[in-house]
């Protein structure tokens, strides 16, 4: 019978076993092409280079890196086959909470007059813990009640925004300590994004957590019968996403030296768009932080490109909407191509 064993399972067409080029490569090409288009348009309409302007590039990266921090968490959620609509509201809520504990004593209308001039670790920890907890609630709802992620996180989105408005009855919170403000100073937001992105690139690639995140998005039933505790894992993924939204909220508040109830509105959609543009599939199982980083840069190039060409802000909003739709259409298209092979 050993003879029969040599007749093996290689019956599939040979081209099926060819390894594919990583999806990130195409995204990278896309980034280069879009940047070149703006470079050409820049010379035509503005008589100057779009790309070779260090100040413009650093503002561009600064603009997107705070949403980029959120997108790192959202990418992981989407890889499990879920979605997180609450991250923008969590940015607002955690910015308020952190800022209220970061005020200086010389400010006479502090939110908590007894809790001023605290060491920077306290507002940061409070913000992060609240974000993690909110994410944990998202994850628990999704894992145990089987509510679709869309609905569960929509609930959190509305609740967290309501909390932000209630917290100071709509008043903005300002006057942070120098230590807290330094978190958002200079290029620190970009630095924080790079650290977060690098850390989660390694975690997704090399740890049990990463492998199981892809497995759940790929085939939840398979993950379950293979012995993965899917419920616990989803709670962890959503908690991490909540924690990263909180980190973004802290950086945003520190950078703007103020926190207000409306902070972070629509950030969740930008973050989802960055992930999807970067090749993360809305049907789960595929995606990477490197792709999302490229998606973030595409986003940044387009926004700052339109500003550079002096296009009206209203156009920018509409273009952003179009980018999101195009990204999702591309994802559906990729999905169909894959189904055909």
């Amino acid at each position, binding site marked *: 019978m050993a003879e029969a064993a040599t007749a093996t399972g290689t*019956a599939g067409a040979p081209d099926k076993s060819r390894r594919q080029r990583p999806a990130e490569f195409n995204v990278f090409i896309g980034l280069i092409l879009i940047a070149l288009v703006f470079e050409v348009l820049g010379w035509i309409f503005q008589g100057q280079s779009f790309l070779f302007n260090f100040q413009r590039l650093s503002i561009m990266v600064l603009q997107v890196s705070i949403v980029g921090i959120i997108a790192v968490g959202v990418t992981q959620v989407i890889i499990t086959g879920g979605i997180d609509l609450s991250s923008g509201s969590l940015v607002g809520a955690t910015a308020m909470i952190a800022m209220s504990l970061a005020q200086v004593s010389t400010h006479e209308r502090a939110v908590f007059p007894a809790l001023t001039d605290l060491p920077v670790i306290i507002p940061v920890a409070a913000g992060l813990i609240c974000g993690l907890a909110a994410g944990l609630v998202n994850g628990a709802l999704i894992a145990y009640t089987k509510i679709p992620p869309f609905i569960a996180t929509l609930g959190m989105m509305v609740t967290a925004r309501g909390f932000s408005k209630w917290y100071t009855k709509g008043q903005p919170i300002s006057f942070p300590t120098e230590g807290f403000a330094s978190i958002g100073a200079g290029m620190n937001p970009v630095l924080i994004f790079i650290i977060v992105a690098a850390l989660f690139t390694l975690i997704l690639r090399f740890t049990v957590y990463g*492998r199981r995140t892809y497995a759940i998005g790929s085939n939840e039933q398979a993950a379950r019968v293979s012995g993965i505790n899917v419920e616990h894992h989803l709670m962890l993924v959503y908690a991490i996403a909540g924690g990263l939204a909180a980190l973004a909220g802290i950086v945003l508040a520190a950078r703007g030296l103020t926190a207000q109830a409306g902070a972070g509105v629509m950030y969740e959609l930008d973050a989802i768009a960055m992930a999807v543009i970067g090749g993360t599939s809305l049907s789960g199982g595929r995606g990477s932080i490197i792709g999302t980083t490229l998606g973030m840069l595409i986003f940044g190039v387009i926004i700052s490109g339109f500003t550079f060409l002096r296009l009206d802000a209203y156009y920018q909003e509409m273009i952003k909407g179009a980018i999101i739709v195009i990204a999702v259409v591309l994802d559906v298209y990729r999905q169909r191509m894959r189904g055909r092979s």
Partner: protein
Amino acid sequence: MSADDRKIILRTEALTKHYGGVHALEAADFILRDGEHVAIVGDNGAGKSTFVRQITGVEQPTSGKIFFDGQEVSFKNPIEARDHGIETVFQNLALADDLDVPSNLFLGREETYFNLGPFSILNERSMTQKAVGALQTTGVKIPDVKNKIRNMSGGQRQCVAISRAATFASKLIIMDEPTAALGVQETAQVENIIRGLKKRGIPLILISHNLRQVLDLVDKVWVWRRGRIVGAVDRDKTDGNEIVSLITGVKSGIDGEAAFV
């Protein structure tokens, strides 16, 4: 063979599963002894897969008892069943399409360098080496184990799922229609894996509609009809016709293979 003095590995007592009004499994008394290879046959919807889901912890039975390896068990989830040494190849493949072969083989039991909980670092090299070894032992040839399951043929996928079960099973292996979608060569290969398990003495429950295959491979055939066990016949004391009549509920007349296709 005097099967009856061998240790009982799995026994169910009046095992019953109802899905609302659907009586998918009705008072099943089943016995499997150490080293024994048995088949479960029956028409579509007879309750075969339902039985598998009850004894592997995927679902909880409506009533009845399960005894495994000498003690009563009620597995709350597939992890517990697996921790007891039961490996299952489910009817709808349980592979993660976006992962490669080693990741799938070790899904849920990843090897790591040191324990950092969920953030433990994967020992990729060891898992790949063992995966290659596992495929070799089961005679499965996959050109590139680092290729994603998505890019493999149906036969290759099934072979991966079966090698996974064969590699990790220590007390019992269950295969639900493992060759249903396979070509002639792949079917022969799966049958070889099963013969290898027989040599290793690992008990097997094989669910199959292929009567030729069943009579070739197993010691005993359990026949299911409409959720009930209607017979258990020794391979050496039966022929295809008897089994067919048990399956269909008529005593004679139908030609062996036809009813199974």
